[in-house]
């Protein structure tokens, strides 16, 4: 059997198992198979081993202020996230693992690409409460339901702390003021942690996303 015939037969075999050609839409059979067997290419888009453009060491070294280190416990290991939009106090970072997170003055506003995303958040008077030395506040989260509907949940929160402690920033340790925001609502309780530097800026945090994802841990480099 010559090489051409072997190649043709192999191609035909692959067509049988998957699909080939120039049509972009694959068979639903293949789509579902990919989802069921992640090795075929389905599952989360973020490859933990990925180092996409924009995340190479020389690029990070050239502008370290544009990067943060983000970990989602058990879902994605510590990885870099690159600033993709900044306006006023709002920043959006895209992770090397193909999810994004938006912050306002260091407080998490939303995520995208985490399968069960925080669609939007209003942290209320959190920062003012911290500046006032603690107290109570209220935050509101929006998430997507299985029916593509936005559901809004309000949380009653208690903010306390103010102690100085060392916080691990990945590449270094820093002394910071630690605050905890404990929130209850919608049958859920979570505790966000914020570490603030001497200027009152959040330099590291651990913030609740959704019940499936749990917490996002982030800090500047």
């Amino acid at each position, binding site marked *: 059997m010559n090489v051409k015939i072997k190649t043709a037969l192999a191609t035909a075999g692959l067509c049988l198992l998957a699909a080939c050609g120039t049509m972009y839409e694959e068979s639903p059979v293949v789509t579902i198979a990919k989802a069921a067997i992640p090795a075929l290419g389905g599952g989360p*888009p973020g490859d933990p081993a990925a180092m996409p453009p924009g995340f190479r060491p020389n690029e990070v070294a050239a502008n370290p202020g544009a990067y943060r280190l983000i970990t989602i416990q058990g*879902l994605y290991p510590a990885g870099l996230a690159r600033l993709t939009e900044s306006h006023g106090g709002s920043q959006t970072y895209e992770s090397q693992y193909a999810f994004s997170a938006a912050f306002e003055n260091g407080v998490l506003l939303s995520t*995208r690409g985490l399968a069960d995303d925080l*669609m939007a958040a209003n942290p209320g008077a959190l920062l003012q409460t911290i500046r006032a030395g603690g107290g109570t506040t209220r935050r509101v989260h929006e998430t997507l339901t299985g029916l593509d509907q936005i559901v809004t949940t309000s949380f009653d929160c208690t903010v306390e702390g103010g102690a100085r402690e060392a916080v691990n920033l990945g590449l270094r340790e820093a002394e910071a003021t630690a605050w905890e925001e404990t929130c209850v609502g919608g049958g859920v309780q979570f505790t966000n942690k914020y570490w603030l530097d001497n200027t009152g800026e959040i330099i590291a945090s651990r913030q609740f996303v959704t019940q499936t994802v749990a917490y996002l841990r982030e800090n500047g480099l």
Partner: protein
Amino acid sequence: MNSTGRLLAAASIAALGLPASQSLAQDDGISWALFGTPGVIDTPVAALPAAGTITGTVTVLPDQYRSTFSFQVSDRLNAAFRYSTFVDYYIGSPTLEDLYDRSFDVAFRVLDESEYLPAVTVGLRDFLGTGVLSSEYVVASKTFGTNIRASAGLGWGRLAGHGAFDNPLASLLGDSFADRPASAAENGDTGKGGVPSYGAWFRGDAAFFGGVEWVATDKLTVKVEYSSDAYLIEQTRNGFDWDTPFNVGVVWFPRPGMHLSFNVLHGNELALTATVLLNAANRPLPSGFDSPPPPVQVRDTAAAASWAGAIDARGLTPSLQEAMAAEGLTLVGLELDGDTLRVRYENDRYRAEAQALGRLARILTAEAPPNVETFQLEPVYAGIPSLGVTLARRDIETLENRVGGTDAVFARADRGPAGPNDGLVPVDDPDPAFTWGIGPYAGFVLFSNPDPVQIEAGIEMRARYEIMPNLVASGALRYALTPYRDDASISGSPLPHVRSDAAVYNNTGNPGIEHLTLAWYGRPAPEIYSRVTAGYLEAMFGGVSGELLWAPTDSRLAVGAEVNYAVQRDFDQLFGFQDYDVVTGHLSVYYDMANGYFAQIDAGRYLAGDWGATFSLDREFENGWRVGGYFTLTDVPFEDFGEGSFDKGIRISVPIDYFAGTPTRQTFDNTLASLTRDGGARLDVEGRLYDTLRSGQLGDLQDGWGRFWR
């Protein structure tokens, strides 16, 4: 298991139809009993599962098999379709042996359970079939503590087989309730059925039944039942050994979404069930694995003010085209007119059109010149625009990541018909005009005697040539690898054999041309759309099909008209035709109700030349699932129609992204028809206008609007 594993497992399990994040079985302690509906063992319970629950149950009884599809239409209404095989049913018949029977059930919960009152449900079993399994009941169920439910009820028909007494309804409603007329099966006429047996409902003797379910552990439920089902048919024909009205059983929940039950029936017999279930309303991964959208780029106010307008639509095209392609969107045309940018695009990736609109709006915040204040976005379907959505750029810049932002964008968006072609700068499609693909296909042939489920699978070759975006030649050739159907003979139908020879087509036409057509779509006026399709329209007919649709984008109502000239194809499904031809067509009314229901009426002439109407009602979920039923009544007499009396069935459309977790517009569609007969048969032409355009209609757009910022 770590979270990555957790998510992957959820996706994989979802693909198997088993949502990982829920344990519906245990939620209300409900299990699906021998009839494939919520029950103890033989008898029903009043508790019903959450709306959207879909189950498939296989029941193995002595000399009897049942396959049941059950759907919880709403909180109160459950519907089921069943295919049963009764082994050795025809005693002494020289030609017949087993009975293959289709039946429908409904159950409606009239009273919810409260602290002191039980739930009460009224139900009909096999109310539309031959009556072999028919019964009616009223049942009450009350839970005690967290793990015991007791049920008691009154049954008629088959549920009055043991311990029967005079019908109490006779004294209330009249003597007509005292006796129960014989069913078609009891009259020995199992070839009929298919019409509601009103005259027998709640008639004749009645009997009490009851049972207790005890949720022993998370994995096991134990059941004891006093059953009024005497298995009279089975005793007569199969020697069913009935000793006692008491049944005992145990249900094992090996994993979420799966039940297995083992039951001892009436002292001496065994019965097994296996049930898989999912809830269409609970997508396992709500926001999916869709890649993160590009962030909104907020303009610098000073740059906007000083913008000199040095770029035109053509200058914008390359980078916009590239940015859109990265999000699965194809730029079709654009117009830059003052501070308004109009973009016409095609969405091949996102099921929810709102998600495509959101991504495009995000892209435009980066790509549009800073003086542009308004985005007019026009999705294109089959080459024709229908919807036009106008968004204020300022809203996109300020509402991203804001609580209430999703609703605010919808409220502030202006929705109407797409603008004219005039003024648009067309953009060449970078994709090749000719595309082709070879891949696997799979489908089911359901409820065909004697096998209730036959898998049909093979290789499909598809090709498509886009002469213009709205003028497309396409074809599909299939080669089946699965065994041929074993009931392939020319039917004895007295009507033209427009559908009843399907198995002959299947066996003769391999490989066969599924379709080979030239389709042209148009928009003769805003909100009026047209289609003409010519060629080999479907597996059994070729010809010409023309359609007009009036569908205002901001309305839930649409009206269409279709006329076809169809000629029957040769059995080999190649290029030849048979002698039969017909002019067929329908007037159609579509109404997308705001409450999750979709109604459609098609009235006109069918393939066999019969006149009548098809009535359809679908329960639609915002995430794309659709489960519905339909029936067709035409001027073909029930006797001529044959078994089943008239065409009816259940149709289901499953969005593939529910299982895959990644964005796709693909759906898996199937119809559970009671029988495929010649009466009430409609041409199966691809790309009918309403389905082609409906993602841009108000109902679908609003359903998926939660994904605008996703």
